[in-house]
């Protein structure tokens, strides 16, 4: 589904990704771990198509097509979803109206009619129950005044609404208490299928107890320096990132 080959990317002429190779197939869960500043969030943003990041070398293929020239919204239409580490507050646009617009723009891009209002309401009800979201919450301005946990739950709610093929969860566990973590993980697990894939970006192993990865990659200084199975995450938790750094020396 996703093939990243020798990816180099920089922001304002500062090289951040220095040769990433990664392949994600349908049905798989990949975890990307690494110390602060290793390039985890940059990788997520580059895949999602943030304009500030310049790909200086390498390829990103999604379903065998190079997506480098596509705008962020076109990537979203193809089924790439990014759950933000810091979701942006948008005053004046309610969660419901935001989702309606997102879904109908995606449908429009695919040449489909707008979703009928009753169908939309049904979908919203169904997915908000999955994430245990209060109905009142949906009429509030997007992310404005939301707690950290509410913001992250809202991200996964959006993911549930949009049903992406590839979901990238960027530090979704940060700022979550244990109950919220469980709800979010439960939501992600319920959305998992043999046709879609998830990339979990996290600093800690904690989330991986709930969303169990098939593969774990360690990112350091813009490169994947070690890959393994879920046991690698446990080893990292025990020994810390210094272990990886020492091993590299």
């Amino acid at each position: 589904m996703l093939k990243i080959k020798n990816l180099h990317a920089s922001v304002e002429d500062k090289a951040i990704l220095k040769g990433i190779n990664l392949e994600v197939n349908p049905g798989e869960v990949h975890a990307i771990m690494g110390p602060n500043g290793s390039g985890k969030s940059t990788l997520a943003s580059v895949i999602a198509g943030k304009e500030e990041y310049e790909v200086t070398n390498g390829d990103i293929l999604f379903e065998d097509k190079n997506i480098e020239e596509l705008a962020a919204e076109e990537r979203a239409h193809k089924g790439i979803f990014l759950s933000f580490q810091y979701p942006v507050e948008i005053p004046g646009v309610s969660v419901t109206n935001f989702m309606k617009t997102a879904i109908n723009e995606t449908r429009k891009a695919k040449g489909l009619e707008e979703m009928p209002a009753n169908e939309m309401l049904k979908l919203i009800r169904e997915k908000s129950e999955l994430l245990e979201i209060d109905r009142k919450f949906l009429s509030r301005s997007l992310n404005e005044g939301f707690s950290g946990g509410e913001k992250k739950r809202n991200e996964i709610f959006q993911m549930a609404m949009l049903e992406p093929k590839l979901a990238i969860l960027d530090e979704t566990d940060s700022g979550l208490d244990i109950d919220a973590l469980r709800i979010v993980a439960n939501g992600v697990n319920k959305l998992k299928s043999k046709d879609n894939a998830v990339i979990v970006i996290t600093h800690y192993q904690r989330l991986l107890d709930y969303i169990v990865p098939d593969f774990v990659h360690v990112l350091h200084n813009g490169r994947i320096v070690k890959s393994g199975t879920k046991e690698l995450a446990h080893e990292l938790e025990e020994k810390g990132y210094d272990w990886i750094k020492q091993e590299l020396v």
Partner: protein
Amino acid sequence: MELKDKLISSFLAFENRVDIDSPVHDVRSEAIKIFESQGFPSKKEEAWKYTSLKSILKHDYSVFPKHEKNIEYNDVKKYFIHEIDSYKIVFIDGKYSSHLSQTTHDGIDVCLMSAALNKPKYQLVIDNYFNKAATKDSITSLNTAFSQEGAYIHIPKNKLVEKPIQIIHFSTGNETAIMHQPRNLIVVNENSHVQIIERHQSLTNNPVLTNSVTEIFANKRAIVDYYKIQNDNENASLIDNTFINQKQESHCSVHTFSFGGKLTRNNLNFYQNGERIDSTLKGVTIIGNKQHVDHNTLVHHIEPNCESHQDYKGIFNDNATGVFNGKVLVNKEAQKTNAFQANNNILVSDKASINTKPQLEIFADDVKCSHGCTIGQLDESALFYMQSRGIPKKEAKALLMYAFSNNVLSSVKIPEIKQRINKIIATKLGVNIGFDL
């Protein structure tokens, strides 16, 4: 001949043509003298520092339209809020159009200024109110000198006027360039409520200059909601001078939607002559190309326990320029005043500009006065966030700008106006948005 000289030399002919014995003859004569000595305001004056009239004064405007022209309702229907039942006072090239209008004398007077100035039965109201709120600055005086036609609205006490009143001025292009000086007088007595919509619309590419004066008197506990829809074409300019005199416990709101025109200057003045008065001034400005919109507001808190709320939003694209100059004056006696003022702007292009200047003069010591102005760009991280959810950049920008102006629209009480403004904003931003805010 310069426009100033042309106007002054036309005055005598104007007076002769209307009625030299008119009770307002002295008022007009005094006003033309003021204009003659001061002329059009220039950028040297503090209040006009950022707005130059030079480019719009150069045309050879016809001051008295010579020809009459009729227009069919269906051709101009779109300029009315036609979805609702309303009274209409319509002018074509400065002349009253009985064909397009719907006036009334049934319990209330919704009719013409020319009638009110000439007929004895209106004389008491004219004596009491005409030119009593308008200031004696040069540009207002110019209008006063030529005051003859416009809307006359008189609501006796305890009347809830259910139908809104639409005042529309059309310019047809019959003249190569035309200048209008409409004069409106609106008197709303105790406990009455009225809603008014005003629009100036040019149907031609010929230059149009309108210098409009509106005096509004809201007596005890009266409610007046006034909507100004400024979406004229880019050869038309408007200087709007509105004076609102409020008595105790009255509530007045003016919403100004500025999307069109070449140059628009809104001089909006509120005078609070009583206690527990509420004044609301709101505006949304969305302009591009070389358009210019200047909001020059004054709220004069004269007595205690009153409130004022000002909220102006501006979005400026291309080479557009904006001005906001908001003056709040709190007299020494006006204790417990609560005055709020906000002016927020988004510059969409590098060449657009806005000059914003809050001006608070507070002589009382127990008041709550706040003001804030911001100038910013669209938030790139918000745009990326929306794009990552499949919303194209253009729509995302529009949605952000929509949301930005949202709280101004939320206080619009007539849903059809809100829908119309939503539609104009969407057209302005070049998108189709699937929901109302």
